């Protein structure tokens, strides 16, 4: 019978909690809404969704910022699976969007078709060129590919990792064996190799073989426990720095790395020190991809009628990609490594050093 007496009590508590939170002042009626631009920008996610802590999320951040600052009208659609792409992009056309962003290579065929059919709408595709139905790259006057040569930044991260490891073993794994993932792993592998050549060391990389283009993958971008399993395998094989390239799966890896003393993590896409603050004490650096900025810049150009279909390729020279500060682990990176990284960065920008990946934007 105790439960019966508790029920009204619980209700009273719940209601009063609600009541307290609802006691705010009503705003004055004369709240005139700001004059909004009639330019409508729209965005369609891929199956990862807006909260993927990866490129969809970064894209959306840049989009939201542009919408807010320029007072644009907006519409966005989250795709749950690949069969949603056609309908979602079509919806955006029907909603009267002037600029439509698509996030991810999976949207390439649908975006290209829509761009060909609607010449008066501008299209921007993140992380992929526009492709026809046979997968061949096409150029259209109203379609701007936004791509990133992440291999350059990952190269620096690989160099840092090789220079910081105590066990002479570092590791990486991906979500899926697809170009937008392996471009990180290729760059990372080359960075480690470069360190070995320069300093005559023998730091081993686990989880990725650049020549064979094969390595460890979690299989998707959702399963965090798989990330934990993979990271634990690497740690037990003696690696002390892990770079997961798998969106939220990386959080699983982070949990595993955190449990092991002295082990460190390299985050990707955004500065993990800020985007995954739970793990900031183990994040050595991050391979940052400036998706948000490129989305913002594209919106800025497009709304002023200055949209250009010229591909945007983010690399070290235009700060489209880069490595994040070392933050709390500043002291763990040897000074000569830090200096070499700065030199290498300059060499890559000057074109003296080429970082190549099969997945690099052409």
């Amino acid at each position: 019978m105790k439960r019966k007496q508790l029920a009204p009590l619980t209700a009273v508590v719940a209601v009063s909690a609600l009541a307290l939170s609802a006691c705010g002042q009503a705003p004055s009626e004369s709240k005139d809404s700001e004059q909004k631009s009639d330019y409508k920008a729209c965005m369609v996610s891929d199956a990862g969704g807006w909260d993927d802590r990866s490129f969809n999320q970064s894209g959306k951040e840049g989009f939201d910022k542009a919408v807010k600052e320029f007072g644009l009208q907006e519409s966005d659609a989250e795709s749950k699976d690949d069969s949603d792409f056609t309908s979602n992009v079509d919806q955006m056309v029907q909603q009267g969007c002037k600029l439509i962003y698509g996030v991810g290579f999976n949207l390439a065929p649908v975006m290209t078709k829509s761009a060909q059919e609607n010449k008066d709408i501008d299209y921007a595709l993140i992380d992929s060129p526009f492709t026809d139905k046979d997968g061949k790259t096409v150029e259209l006057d109203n379609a701007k590919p936004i791509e990133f040569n992440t291999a350059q930044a990952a190269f620096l991260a690989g160099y840092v990792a090789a220079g910081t490891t105590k066990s002479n073993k570092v590791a990486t794994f991906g979500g899926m064996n697809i170009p937008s993932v392996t471009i990180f792993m290729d760059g990372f592998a080359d960075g480690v190799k470069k360190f070995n050549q320069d300093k005559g060391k023998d730091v081993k990389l686990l989880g990725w073989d650049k020549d064979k283009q094969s390595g460890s993958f979690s299989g998707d971008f959702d399963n965090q426990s798989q990330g934990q399993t993979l990271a634990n395998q690497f740690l037990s094989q003696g690696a002390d720095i892990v770079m997961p390239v798998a969106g939220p799966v990386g959080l699983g890896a982070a949990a595993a790395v955190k449990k092991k003393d002295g082990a460190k993590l390299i985050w990707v896409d955004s500065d993990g020190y800020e985007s995954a603050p739970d793990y900031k004490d183990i994040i050595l650096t991050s391979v940052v991809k400036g998706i948000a900025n490129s989305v913002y810049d594209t919106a800025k150009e497009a709304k002023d009628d200055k949209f250009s279909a010229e591909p945007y390729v983010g690399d070290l020279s235009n700060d489209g990609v880069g490595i994040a500060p070392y933050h709390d682990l500043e002291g763990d990176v040897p000074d000569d490594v830090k200096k070499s990284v700065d030199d290498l960065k300059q060499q890559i920008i000057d074109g003296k050093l080429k970082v190549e990946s099969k997945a690099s934007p052409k």
Partner: protein
Amino acid sequence: MSSTTVSQPPAPQPAAGGSRPAGTGQPGLMRQILSGSWLVSLLAIVIALAVGAVLIAVANPDVQETASYFFARPADFFAAAWQAISEAYLALLRGSVFDWQATSAVRMVRPFTESLVSATPLILTGLGIALAFRSGLFNIGGQGQVVLGSICSGFLGYALHLPPVIHLLVALAGGILGGAIWAGIAGVLKARTGANEVIVTIMLNSIAGFLFAYLLKQAWFKHTDSANPISATVDSSAMLPPLLPSPFRLNAGFIVAILATLLVWWLLERSTTGFEFRAVGENPNAAKTAGISVSRVTITVMLIAGALAGLGGAAQILGTEGKLSAGVGGSIGFDAITVALLGRSRPLGTFFAGLLFGAFKAGGYLMQAQTGTPIDIVLVVQSVIVLLIAAPPLVRTIFRLPAPVKKEDA
């Protein structure tokens, strides 16, 4: 709003124990689900929409803002909530049936055809699940069977170059065969070794997913030079012919779905084989005593169920998608379980449940794009439907319905 009805405290019902079907020795979960009435299905949808309405209101920023000064001016809150809910559901309706705000006549009627397009794979796969349910088999492997159907039909669609009609038939046959073999594995294991079909089909789902991911990395499979895991495009000779000109996407796949519904109905209700299926589903021991080979029925049922699910995958590829990519099967195989449950595992019921879910899917696009309502609401509505369908007594309690006296017949 009917949500007020939901919040009424359920009165103690002395007859609660009487909700199990009378006259049967083992009132299993399956029997409970199947004995639910049409009314229960309908009420489940109503409750689910009411729950969805609450979530739409909660998720809406305007409603959140007005809630913060609820006591100062409650009218604002109710106005905002009403506006959010009505706009979202009207958009859902406009996106799935008839869009009276569209710019052209074609665009006005297109939503209904889009619902049919989305419904096609759900109906086909749902029939496969329903057939297995009726035969006493929990086929949770619809997803894997859909994937295999997609793989086989898609591959035959772009790897071979055959004359029209023949090419389509070959590709469809490939999809049917792929799904049938995949489900057949579970059927044989169940019949020969007694392996639980639920476990085996779930495992086969994962295997199908990884097999697909592997194949999409192989150049010989996807027929493109691109490094992205997307296959070449299916030849137009293998695509299901459109029933209406562009921009309509309605294709002959829907006709296939109608034919399959009729076929399954005939099979289950009018044929000797179907009688055996149902007999095994009702009581395997009695069926065995009556001289029916339970293991043969198990294998046959799984083969046919897989064939239907494979056809669902084929309809998706050859109907609208035209190419293979990792997420192309979506969650058809799992949604189809809901469709079969909502349709009470009857062919016609499955057909209409498939239409409803197709409409949810098609309407969800407009709802999300226009009102900014999270697409997850649709998923919640679907999930609540399943929850309630699986618990008919709960629905009866909410609406104070009497418990069924005896198991009704279809």
